[in-house]
């Protein structure tokens, strides 16, 4: 099979797999589609068996890390961490929508950074929605804040976003060094969101509130918080101790799940579902499919498009191209395609981190993460309600370019320091 034909086939399989993941037909799961696509590409010789095995071996630790983090987040939910966050927000905001937004920003950014963007979107957003309903204020600014911060605050730690986990190894940074380089860019991206949100939702937020009854004092689940704190401390010390961070994540997941099993607070089946095996398989399959495309010439094309070096214009261009790419496909395949090229575009971790800024902040441009997803869902009439697209897109247009530039400039400064 020629390279051109193999590349075309790999891209068709990639598009079909993403299409299944977006459309979610009842008869075919995206995990099955990704596996079938990968097997097809190996069978026809678009990717060699050993090459596919290498791709899987490279992704294995990342996927294990992801599973451990999913289990930790689910354990935090079971222990009541997210409900406690709702109580903190309700009590701290004292009936003021502006204060509520401030609490949502801090808590959503913290949950995203520590437990990943999935936790913010799946577990925190319903709590924020219920808190706004209970306060009798418009939930819109606060739910938008969760959706946006799940992306823009996910720069901070290798565990904040699957894209970071995928790039972490290639960046050759220690956990602590990654966090140190990304802390100011994260604050810049979140700061841009704050300034824009305060103006964009000014009318929703300005409504005066009368003080009602003070909500109850929140009860923080001490066990879950302690496990989280110890896991983070383990991540921070991993390079000093010479132990890979994935082992601390595994230990944290074990500490969070085994006592629940023992107390019968969770069944083995529930825990297995919480680790989302379908999603893990999907990521592995996607990795093989993208490797088939990259190995047959896509990487050359990406290399030609992506600037090299660590200068500010190069980093800005990398972040912008990554953001566009993440919006055209989705940030997962975009990361799989871009990171190997960006890692070789060094010197230093600048290009990889700029890629992450692009693929993490960029998806806020189109609220469902990518233009393809957005258009597909429109085509399939999957939205239950008629909502103006204009507002989503306007908010994205106001926050994303400014956030990308601010975060990348500060990354450049941090790299020089």
């Amino acid at each position, binding site marked *: 099979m020629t390279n051109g034909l193999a590349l075309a086939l790999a891209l068709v399989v990639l598009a079909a797999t993403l299409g299944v993941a*977006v459309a979610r037909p009842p008869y075919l799961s995206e995990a099955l589609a990704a596996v079938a696509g990968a097997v097809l590409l190996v069978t026809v010789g678009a990717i060699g068996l050993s090459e596919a095995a290498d791709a899987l071996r490279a992704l294995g630790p990342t996927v294990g890390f992801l599973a451990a983090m999913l289990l930790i987040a689910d354990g935090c939910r079971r222990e009541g961490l997210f409900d406690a966050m709702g109580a903190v927000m309700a009590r701290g905001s004292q009936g003021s929508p502006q204060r509520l937004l401030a609490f949502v920003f801090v808590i959503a950014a913290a949950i995203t950074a520590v437990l990943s963007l999935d936790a913010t979107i*799946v577990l925190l957003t*319903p709590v924020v929605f219920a808190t706004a309903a209970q306060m*009798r204020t418009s939930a819109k600014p606060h739910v938008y804040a969760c959706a946006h911060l799940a992306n823009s605050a996910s720069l901070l730690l290798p565990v904040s976003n699957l894209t970071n986990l995928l790039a972490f190894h290639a960046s050759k940074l220690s956990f602590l060094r990654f966090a140190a380089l990304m802390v100011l860019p994260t604050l810049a991206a979140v700061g841009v969101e704050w300034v824009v949100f305060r103006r964009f939702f000014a009318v929703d937020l300005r409504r005066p509130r009368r003080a009602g009854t003070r909500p109850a004092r929140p009860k923080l689940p001490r066990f879950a918080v302690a496990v989280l704190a110890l896991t983070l401390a383990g991540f921070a010390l991993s390079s000093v101790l010479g132990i890979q961070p994935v082992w601390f994540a595994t230990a944290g997941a074990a500490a969070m799940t085994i006592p629940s099993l023992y107390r019968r607070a969770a069944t083995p089946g529930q825990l297995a579902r919480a680790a*989302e095996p379908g999603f893990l398989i999907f990521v592995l399959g996607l990795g093989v499919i993208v490797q088939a495309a990259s190995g047959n010439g896509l990487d050359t094309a990406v290399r030609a498009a992506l600037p090299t070096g660590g200068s500010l214009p190069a980093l800005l261009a990398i972040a912008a191209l990554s953001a566009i790419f993440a919006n055209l496909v989705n940030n997962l395949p975009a990361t799989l395609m871009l990171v190997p090229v960006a890692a070789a575009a060094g010197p230093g971790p600048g290009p990889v981190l700029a890629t992450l800024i692009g693929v993490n902040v960029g998806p806020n441009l189109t609220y469902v993460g990518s233009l393809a997803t957005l258009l597909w869902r429109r085509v399939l009439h999957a939205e239950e*309600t008629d*909502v103006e697209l204009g507002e989503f897109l306007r908010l994205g247009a106001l926050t994303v370019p400014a956030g990308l530039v601010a975060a990348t400039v500060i990354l450049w400064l941090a790299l020089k320091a």
Partner: protein
Amino acid sequence: MRALVWIIEDTWEATVAEAAAFLPSDADVTLLHVASTEAETVAGAARRGLLGRHQPPRAAPALREISEQAAHELLAEAQTRLGRPARLEARRGRVEHVVVAAAAPMDILVLARDGDRERLGPRSLGPTARFVVDHAPCCVLLIWPDVAPALTTIPPPPAPGAPQPRPSAL
């Protein structure tokens, strides 16, 4: 007289109090609350953006249930405050469209300003109330949610010879 009283979370108490004061005692009153579905759509869209993840069903209630529960509680409180029988209507959707449609068979619509009340002018009506007032198919009683402004809030006429203020772009 058929009267529709549209209440929103922030200003419902003032709206209901004014409705009770101004509407004749034999008026056929309907209290309307419209839950915006926008926040639910944004939350749902963000979830679907997580490609490849089939979130297992969680113990938490769906956003729609939370929203409907809150609306029912609000309407029940509003009826108590109104102090007379009224039909309670909880609807969902694009708020301004739903309100205008619900006002079609009515003689009067009561609503509160929902904009910036610190700078009196066009923006004291937010986009939603602006649309409702402009398209209402009946007459409208527009109330101040707090104290009605004093006459002194009207700016003085410009002094002779002073530069003309530029028309503000809206």
